[in-house]
């Protein structure tokens, strides 16, 4: 499914430059970066509450489509800056990872 459609349907906040015309294939949820590295798949949308610069490194390594920050967590400027540089969108929602997963499931992702 298209990322811009997901952003619109779920009312997500886009923290990076609006580079969201891309395809999402499946979702991964996790906050332990090593597990995400091992288990997430390419073009996944990744839901996490981690916000450190390290998440961009993980997303680059795996080739994730975008990062969705749950629970309205504050994201460091350094993280957003690097995300813009490597063109990985960071999205944010006040919902929990579980609620986001349910909404994405209803959408058919």
């Amino acid at each position, binding site marked *: 499914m298209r990322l811009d459609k997901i952003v619109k349907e779920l009312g997500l906040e886009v923290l990076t430059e609006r580079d969201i015309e891309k395809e999402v294939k499946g979702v991964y949820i996790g906050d332990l*970066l*090593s597990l995400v590295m091992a288990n997430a798949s390419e073009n996944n949308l990744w839901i996490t509450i981690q916000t*450190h*610069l*390290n998440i*961009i*490194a*993980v997303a680059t*390594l795996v080739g994730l489509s975008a990062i969705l920050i749950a629970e309205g967590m504050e994201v460091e400027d350094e993280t957003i800056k690097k995300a813009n540089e490597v063109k990985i969108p960071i999205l944010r929602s006040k919902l929990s990872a579980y609620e986001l997963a349910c909404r994405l499931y209803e959408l058919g992702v």
Partner: protein
Amino acid sequence: MKELSLHILDLAENSLRAKATKININIFEDTEKDLLIIELEDNGIGMAEDLLRKVENPFVTSRTTRKVGLGIPLMKAAALRCEGDFKISSEIGKGTRVISIFKHSHIDRAPIGDIGQTIISLINANENVEIVYRHSYNGNCFVFDTREIKKILGNVSINEADIMLWIKDYINENVKNLYRNSQ
């Protein structure tokens, strides 16, 4: 990572890539002071000041196969998450020292994990590297030194499967005894 032993393995692999011939791994636990300190020291090629300053950034790596290196950033994040601290120092031609400090009782502190497995993975990666593992828990201490094992083994190679399995069990058993004897 789920276990600190995996962070240790990651950092020690940096030491191997830096051509270290000796790696000291020190674990210091003091539940009275609520401290867990993990120290890695190697005699590898070391890093210059400018690389040292950047190395906590995941987008800095000496690897040429990919752009991202997460060994140091993840260990640092793990320590800071536990109200701890992280310090790295290095000198060209002398080696590198990495210290990670954790609040022992912090709810997000990962367990130390299978340290025996970490040590034999390192021996397996390079049997010529000498590893000294020191683990102290509330004053009780266990020391494992590959040079002592090699002395006993004589001409037998340290990375024979049976010996590796023995080393792994020997280390894990002794670490378990540290905890048991301190109760």
